[in-house]
């Protein structure tokens, strides 16, 4: 397949649509937000999602997964985005399982992948140290100590970082902040000695944490992938995350567009449906066009991932940059076309705008990805 869903994928998409609409619609997220719940998502819901097979959707069958393919995961993420559902799908599956598949030792895979697939283990990767995404800007130090390492430093904007059972930490084993060489991935326990975690209260009310590591000791078995070669290993994990998050953003943008289109068809001003005003029609047509283009870039990137294309990195940056711009446009227009009602906390469109702004900056903004795309293509 690829650009058109096959039968299995269509069934998956339909069941995801039904699942989220029933069990995790926007009202559920709103309730979660208003409850100021520290966990930041529903563990029951996550169990249900795992039962659907989604926690293990990209995990090979030998590790207890569904091995359905990456495209399948993007379909679930799109529906999740459409409903603003808070879940550890990005942190645990895209990042955690992704990193294990990409760089995990057999022992690590055997131990953790089945638990992820069963919905029993929450994972994440800790990358950012600054207010802009750039993995090379890692300073958190991992010093060799006997046959292990001691990690000291601080990470921020770690998705689900305060609840993750295992955290993969990008640390500097050599070189200096800014170097792509000299980075290594370490797998640590979320509750290891020396780890302090603090949930950040983000604009989108989703989970992100600040994590301090103070002399955290790990054995050499905690190393994932090549020593000093963590940047490249992580890049492949991040490609997956960028595409997956783009799918989530696409779902959110599509939802905003649909609710806006509905509003254009029911709201009257000056004795006319506002959707009959040509300037709004043209802007709606342009939004739809951008969404169609966005859909193509997400599907193409997801397919390339499943096919092991050597263009994945480019396609991932294309997807993240393009969908970010579309999401920004659609959420902006969504508010404007709703007028005053869209400005109220009571209306959902604002929730989507908030999620969009945070997602745009997660794993690199549109500007970051345009630069990356050009670099990858030698200009």
């Amino acid at each position: 397949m690829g650009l058109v869903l096959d039968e299995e994928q269509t069934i998956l998409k339909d069941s995801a649509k039904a699942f989220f609409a029933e069990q995790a619609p926007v009202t559920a997220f709103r309730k979660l937000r208003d409850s100021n719940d520290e966990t930041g998502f529903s563990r029951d819901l996550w169990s249900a999602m795992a039962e659907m097979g989604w926690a293990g959707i990209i995990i090979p069958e030998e590790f207890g997964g569904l091995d359905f393919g990456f495209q399948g995961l993007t379909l679930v993420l799109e529906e999740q985005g459409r409903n603003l559902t808070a879940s550890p799908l990005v942190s645990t599956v895209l990042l955690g399982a992704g990193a294990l598949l990409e760089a995990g030792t057999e022992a690590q895979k055997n131990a953790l992948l089945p638990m992820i697939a069963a919905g029993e283990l929450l994972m994440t990767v800790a990358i950012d140290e600054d207010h802009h995404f750039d993995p090379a800007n890692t300073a958190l130090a991992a010093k060799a100590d006997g046959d292990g390492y001691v990690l000291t430093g601080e990470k921020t904007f770690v998705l689900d970082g305060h609840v993750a059972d295992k955290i993969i930490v990008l640390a500097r084993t050599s070189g200096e902040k800014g170097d792509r060489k000299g980075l290594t991935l370490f797998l640590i326990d979320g509750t290891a000695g020396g780890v302090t975690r603090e949930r950040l209260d983000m604009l989108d009310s989703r989970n992100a944490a600040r994590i301090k590591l103070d002399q955290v000791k790990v054995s050499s078995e905690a190393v994932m992938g090549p020593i000093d070669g963590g940047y490249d290993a992580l890049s492949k994990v991040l490609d997956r995350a960028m595409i997956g998050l783009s799918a989530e953003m696409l779902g959110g943008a599509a939802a905003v567009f649909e609710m806006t289109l509905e509003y254009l068809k029911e709201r009257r001003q000056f004795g006319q449906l506002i959707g009959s005003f040509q300037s709004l029609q043209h802007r709606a047509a342009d939004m739809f066009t951008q969404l169609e283009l966005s859909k193509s870039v997400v599907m193409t990137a997801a397919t390339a991932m499943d096919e092991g294309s050597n263009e994945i990195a480019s396609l991932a940056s294309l997807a993240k940059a393009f969908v970010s711009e579309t999401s920004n446009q659609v959420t902006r227009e969504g508010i404007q076309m709703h007028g005053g009602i869209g400005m109220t906390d009571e209306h959902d469109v604002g929730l989507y705008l908030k999620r969009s702004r945070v997602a745009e900056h997660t794993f690199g903004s549109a500007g970051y990805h345009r630069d990356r795309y050009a670099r990858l293509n030698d200009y």
Partner: protein
Amino acid sequence: MSDLDVFREEVRAWLVENCPPSMRTPMGNDEDVVWGGRKANYKNPEAKLWLDRMGAKGWTAPTWPKEYGGGGLSKEEASVLGQELGRINARPALASFGLWMLGPVLLEYATDEQLKEHLPPIVRGEIRWCQGYSEPGAGSDLAGLQTRAVLEGDEYVINGQKVWTSYADKADAIFCLVRTDTSTKHEGISFLLIDMDQAGVTTKPIKLISGNSPFCETFLDDARTPARNLIGRLNGGWEIAKKLLQHERTNISAGGFGAGGRSAALEEVAKEYLGAEGGKIADAVKRDEVVRHKMLERAFAQTLKRMSAESKAGEVSPASSIIKYVAAEMNKDRMELLVEIMGLQALGWSGDYFSAEGLATTRGMLRSKANSIEGGTTEVNLNVIAKRVLGLRDHQ
């Protein structure tokens, strides 16, 4: 020495004497703004003192006639007063929709009796007014309003609902557009003043996406007001409304929009959050966006100045739509650009991790989305420019 110079000396001397020290310091935040009114709560007694002194001179409304409590100053004298206030960084003694919106309209449409009743309390900050325009069913289509006012004896009885009434929960009275004739649209609207201290008027704050509640829903259930509170002609309210909208557009735009991050210069924020190389913002692409914005801001400021130089004193024109359109879109873009520049620091909702500047940017970005909706949407302003300035017509 010219008369103006004499006046300047007098003002300067008076200010030395009367402007309290704490009133010459920059305002910390929105809470330092003095709105006056019956429910006013002065944390800083000097703010009250400053208001009382300025109000007594009529200098909160410097060009209004003395007989109505104003300062009775000429345009030139008022300009001198403004300069001298600016010279000592004096805080505005009073912020007031009564001063900015209602007063000018009363001066144009009200009777002498009405002026004597309503202007002096506005000047002295004894009453806080809010504006009852929009309704749930009528947003941009203001004239579609449904709130009914019926004359019973010597009182109007008003029923209906207003929305987006700024600070209605803190106001003492509301100036309202109401329907007094249901058989026609624009010609069935009147302009009424209504005291809010009565059972028939209730308000409910609206929580915005920014988390703040500057606006309310206002419910009028058999609210009453004396018939003498009709301003202008019965069913002549639409003309007044249009004037007021122009005042509103000009005021909103000239005053700058909403909250957040206006103080720090964009380019300095960019240098701080994106780094600087050789004195330049390190990210060349963002730097270009910053320049674009700075250029637009400057072109806008120059245009405000030019239009003010071109216009007759006190006149408002369709140009207000141009101003409002640019100001709204510009501020929205500025806030989005700031978020882009600050990244994670401008994506927080609360908490110590985020800088005050970052949090103000986040909230400010959200608040700014209303700029192109409140006081005339961007779409309405573009319609006004196309039709009233360019002479383009509707489908025939």
